[in-house]
């Protein structure tokens, strides 16, 4: 009985050895996950339109701009997944601002190349669902550092977004902020002379959102 047992045991070792040689020398490790760009719905109150209504052309000063009524819009983004959210601003009336600078947006032309005025956009009251009251940042395109503030003036040269603190973006599924549009009517000198007809103020800007900085 004892012998038999020994033999069996050798066979068993041999069998094991053979199995080890025959098997492939690889081990597979899988890393799984689906890449999904989060999708956000951005909505702006009043379809993004601030209508100043009828404005008297008598407000046009000969040499200096005239401040018009400030209009307020509220902007929100609803995202499917938690994400960072940043945006850039583009002026569809580029070159028609009566004041040059990357925070001034145009209101369209009149009298040929005359400029009707300009507006600035001030963003504040930032909120995200993750941290509640949030800060904002605005940093030159391509920059990776920024400081967080309570309010920013939208800048065509910058990337802007919601911030937790300086250098830290604020992630979330829901983002909110208020944007004040601060319009100024150009002087009649900047308009290339007096208006002979009724004229429409025609400001248009686009905010392009991206997920990340």
């Amino acid at each position, binding site marked *: 009985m004892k012998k038999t047992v020994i033999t069996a045991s050798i066979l068993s070792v041999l069998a094991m050895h053979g199995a080890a040689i025959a098997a492939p020398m690889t081990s597979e490790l899988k890393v799984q996950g689906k890449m999904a760009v989060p999708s956000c719905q*951005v909505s702006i109150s009043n379809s993004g339109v601030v209508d100043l*209504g009828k404005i008297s052309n008598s407000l046009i000063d000969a040499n200096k701009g005239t401040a018009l009524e400030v209009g307020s819009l509220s902007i929100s983004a609803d995202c499917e997944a938690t994400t960072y959210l940043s945006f850039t601003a583009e002026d569809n009336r580029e070159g028609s601002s009566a004041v040059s600078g990357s925070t001034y947006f145009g209101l369209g032309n009149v009298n040929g190349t005359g400029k009707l005025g300009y507006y600035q956009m001030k963003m504040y009251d930032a909120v995200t669902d993750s941290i509640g009251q949030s800060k904002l940042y605005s940093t030159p395109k391509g920059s990776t550092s920024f400081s967080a503030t309570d309010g920013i003036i939208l800048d065509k040269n910058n990337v802007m977004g919601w911030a937790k603190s300086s250098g830290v973006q604020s992630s979330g599924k829901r983002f909110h902020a208020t944007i004040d549009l601060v319009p100024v009517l150009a002087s009649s000198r900047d308009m290339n002379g007096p208006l002979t007809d009724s004229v429409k103020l025609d400001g248009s800007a686009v*905010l392009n959102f991206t997920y990340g900085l």
Partner: protein
Amino acid sequence: MMKNVLFKVTAISALLFSAGSLAAGPSAEIKLTGDLIAPKCAINTPDMVFDYGDKISPTLISNTAPVSLGKVASVSLTVNCDAQTSLTFGVTDNRLGTASMSGSKYFGLGNINGTGKLGHYLISVSRPVVDQRAAATFVSSGSTIPQLLYVAELEHGKRSGWAKQGERALAIGKTFGLDVSTEAFLAKRGDMHGGVGDDTALDGSATLEFGFGL
């Protein structure tokens, strides 16, 4: 082997980050619109009559000084415009030269006894309002607002209007309100160049001519 696998994971993670950074999201358009037009305004109270009645006694007339007939209840002047505008008015004394006091805030009440002067009156304005919000007023002889006033005495040959509170600039709005009242004075006897007959009437008249600027 392990090193290889780790490397792959790192590469994928970097890809994820970079894809996240570059992924274009939604866009939103912001529009700022308005119509620049020549405004039209309507004055709701075109005729303001301050009537001191027909029983002013000539015995009130003093030998030494003008005598006040008191203030008449104020009239609310309202102007409605169809566009956002500033609003001013020039003041003209239609009885210029008949006031018994000299100075641009004294308006004439007409002549008596030839070149005699019956008296004068003051026009005071208060409670300037623009679009239901309290505003300021002013009296200006040039193109600037020298001082913000909340109660003012109008002056002939000068312009008044609606200004912002706390800023020497014209207020902008569509609806403008102002309370207007007068205080009339009978001239002292010597200024009247004689007696006062039964049918003598106070005959003050002033015109406010509205415009949009200074």
